[in-house]
């Protein structure tokens, strides 16, 4: 199907139903959902006309509450109300604890690294909390659009590492949402701007979210968004501006460090309000009710505020400089800077950023909504609604991937800012006679020492054929897909035997844990698992049938001889027949058989398309 669409870009397609798809911006502070309706991407409001959904989940015995109602309970019920869960996503319990005073939750002590918070309804992990937010947004989209979603694009900070990306995908799985793609937030913002203005050139996207900071440098050329480099800080965000201000209030009001959770939350809320007020006004007044019942009054000028936050804002310029360097560019070569995230409304941020890049800072699209809008545009294309669209996003991996070698050192396998998808192979050998297993420790980060990088996973390679030490040649291939997720394959070269790879994620949930969570969730229990699997298998079979039929109609006569054609036709007919039967296993094996049978044809088509793309193009034609 897709091959057909690409081989004949000018031709009109058979009319097909508009597939429902949405883009979700799963933010630290607020989340949004957007979709393309009658050709326009727009964020979808709730029943009361509110577009933003505060990323707050409150667990009650009557069920979870998400959004504004949960947020207003944050002060009165801090232990059961989880805010800024994104900061914890993909982190270990120790890392979460190092965030210290800002997290009032009670964590359960346990063996696995994934933090679990005690609530009135039991323990909840950050993945489960995030899934609640996703469920609300996907339901909002389905109700607004009037049908089930084909899939969603979920945005993540560009600087998210593998564990954080995986956790986001796991959350979607728990929410039973099909993820078309994880999209980097700055790239999403670029899409929202790029398609509007159609301006080719090099752009910087400065994205200061609630809890994360990203910078991306990208080149837009006739619909192709090529990310040249990306950088950031996944623990620095707009919340930190509020925190500095909250600390100042504490100092001024004579509050001690051991104030309770409710007071902490209230201070953060007041600080945020003051920050927003100072965007327009030169001064703002503050009022805090002390434990004694007295009221404290204070005045804050924008100048004072600027002084407080300047070190933090300057800290964001460090990754900006590095991103420029990695792209091999100077600030002068950047045409403009796109501002994303609510905190880019702060005048000092605008001033320092446009000063650094010596260029105009663009913020025409609401910085709170721009990421969701970009995600919706991408979702619309990935769902197959615009087969002729030229848009293509080429992104990079934000952090170097490496493996542990002798002496606790890291050997880089895939350096940061490599365009994804990418695969790199590395050869290993055994050091003992008859050794049949081997452990590989995968790390992410830029530093040389294992202890300074982040552990992603430990892989155990098993089933290596026994040989004398040093004779086995095990080729391990590390692949990063378009979502930025890592996978590993291993093969012994001399015998061609595949070693099995067992992944132990350092900070993630295992497949079993997710399975248990899924079974435990009420919605899932109501549906028969077997029926669901059968239906999924039938859908996949249908997909294969349609794709192959379309391909055959398109170029089957040119690319296949009579005998090959007859063989494929027969195999296709068998699958059509079997798909009618309600036998999941039989359909599955027939799909496999057909795919194996047709592999040569699919490859031939791919090559033929590549030839078509390359032929007839001369240099002058591009100018």
């Amino acid at each position: 199907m897709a091959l057909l669409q690409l081989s004949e870009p000018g031709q009109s397609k058979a009319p097909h139903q508009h597939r429902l798809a949405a883009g979700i911006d799963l933010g630290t502070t607020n989340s949004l959902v957007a979709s393309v309706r009658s050709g326009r991407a727009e964020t979808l409001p709730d029943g009361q006309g509110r577009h933003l959904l505060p990323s707050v989940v409150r667990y009650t015995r009557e069920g979870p509450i998400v959004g504004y109602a949960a947020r207003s309970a944050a002060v009165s019920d801090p232990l059961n109300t989880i805010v800024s869960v994104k900061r914890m996503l993909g982190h270990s319990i120790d890392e979460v604890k190092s965030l210290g005073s800002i997290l009032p939750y009670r964590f359960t002590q346990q063996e696995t690294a994934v933090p679990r918070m005690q609530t009135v309804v039991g323990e909840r992990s950050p993945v489960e909390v995030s899934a609640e937010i996703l469920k609300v947004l996907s339901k909002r989209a389905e109700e607004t659009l009037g049908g089930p979603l084909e899939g969603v694009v979920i945005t993540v900070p560009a600087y998210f590492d593998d564990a954080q990306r995986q956790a986001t995908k796991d959350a979607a799985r728990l929410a039973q949402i099909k993820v078309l793609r994880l999209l980097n937030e700055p790239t999403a913002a670029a899409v929202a701007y790029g398609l509007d203005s159609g301006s080719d050139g090099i752009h910087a996207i400065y994205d200061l979210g609630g809890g994360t900071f990203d910078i991306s440098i990208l080149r837009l050329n006739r619909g192709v968004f090529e990310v040249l480099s990306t950088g950031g800080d996944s623990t620095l965000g707009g919340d930190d501006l509020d925190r500095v201000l909250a600390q100042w209030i504490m100092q001024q009001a004579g509050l001690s460090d051991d104030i309770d959770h409710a007071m902490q939350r209230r201070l953060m809320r007041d600080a945020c309000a003051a920050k927003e007020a100072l965007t327009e006004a030169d001064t703002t007044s503050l009022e805090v009710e002390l434990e004694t019942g007295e009221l404290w009054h204070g005045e804050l000028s924008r100048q004072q505020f600027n002084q407080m936050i300047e070190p933090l804002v300057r800290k964001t310029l460090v990754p900006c400089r590095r991103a420029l360097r990695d792209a091999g560019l100077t600030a002068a070569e950047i045409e403009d800077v796109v501002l994303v995230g609510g905190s880019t409304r702060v005048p000092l941020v605008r001033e320092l950023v446009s000063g650094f890049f010596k260029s105009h800072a663009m913020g025409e699209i609401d910085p709170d909504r721009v990421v969701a809008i970009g995600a919706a545009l991408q979702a619309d294309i990935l769902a197959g609604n615009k087969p002729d669209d030229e848009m293509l996003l080429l992104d990079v991996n934000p952090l170097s991937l490496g493996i542990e070698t002798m002496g606790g050192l890291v050997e880089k396998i895939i350096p940061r800012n490599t365009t994804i998808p990418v695969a790199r192979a590395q050869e290993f050998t055994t050091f003992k006679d008859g050794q049949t297993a081997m452990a590989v420790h995968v790390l992410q980060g830029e530093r040389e020492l294992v202890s300074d990088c982040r552990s992603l996973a430990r892989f155990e390679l098993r089933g290596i054929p026994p040989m004398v030490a040093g004779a086995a040649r095990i080729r391990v291939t590390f692949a990063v897909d378009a979502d930025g997720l890592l996978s590993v394959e291993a093969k012994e070269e001399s015998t061609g035997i595949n070693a099995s790879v067992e992944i132990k994620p350092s900070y993630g949930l295992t497949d079993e844990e997710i399975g248990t969570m899924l079974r435990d969730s009420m919605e899932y229990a109501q549906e028969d698992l077997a029926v669901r699997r059968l239906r999924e298998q039938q859908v996949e079979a249908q997909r294969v049938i349609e794709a192959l039929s379309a391909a055959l109609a398109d170029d089957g006569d040119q690319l296949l001889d009579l005998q090959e054609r007859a063989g494929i036709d027969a195999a296709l007919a068998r699958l059509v027949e079997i798909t009618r039967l309600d036998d999941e296993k039989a359909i599955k094996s027939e799909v496999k058989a057909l795919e194996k049978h047709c592999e040569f044809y699919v490859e031939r088509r791919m090559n033929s398309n590549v030839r078509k793309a390359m032929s007839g193009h001369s240099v002058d034609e591009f100018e």
Partner: protein
Amino acid sequence: MLDFSKNYFELFGLPVGYIVDKTQLAERYRELQRVVHPDRFANAPEQERRISMQGTVRINEAYNTLKDPIERARYMLSLNGIEMDAQQETTRDSAFLMEQLELREELEAARDKPDPYAAIADLMTDINKRISSMVGQMAVQFETPTPEQLESAREILRKMQFLQKFRYDAESLEAELDEAL
């Protein structure tokens, strides 16, 4: 899977040669990605998605090799039957090695300068100039390469690797300074 019998130049429909038109290379890269990238197959069956992923990986690898003058030289040598071991091989040109030692000392000293970033930037400019001039020498060797010319290309590449390592270390020093901010 893409046709693996094709070399990277053929894949991009470009003549085999050390001098590459960067604009043209980038255009061809985008044209190929438009056809092969996994996002074009988001709705396709598993098998097509896998093949598309493999194709894109190869195109990315080819692009990274051809656009970088050092990787491109290494690749051209391998097309001519010379596989270089980056870890093991080093130049024996003592004048060049002395120069490298001096540059390294300057890099170490940059750390304590009043404006270390400016000092590093100056060194980088110098290194990039040296690389550019080697790119010119390299191009001459590859015009119609004789075995002797391939040997000198190999020697130039050994030196380029030094400069590349220097550039990497200078960037690391900058990153170290950044972290101290």
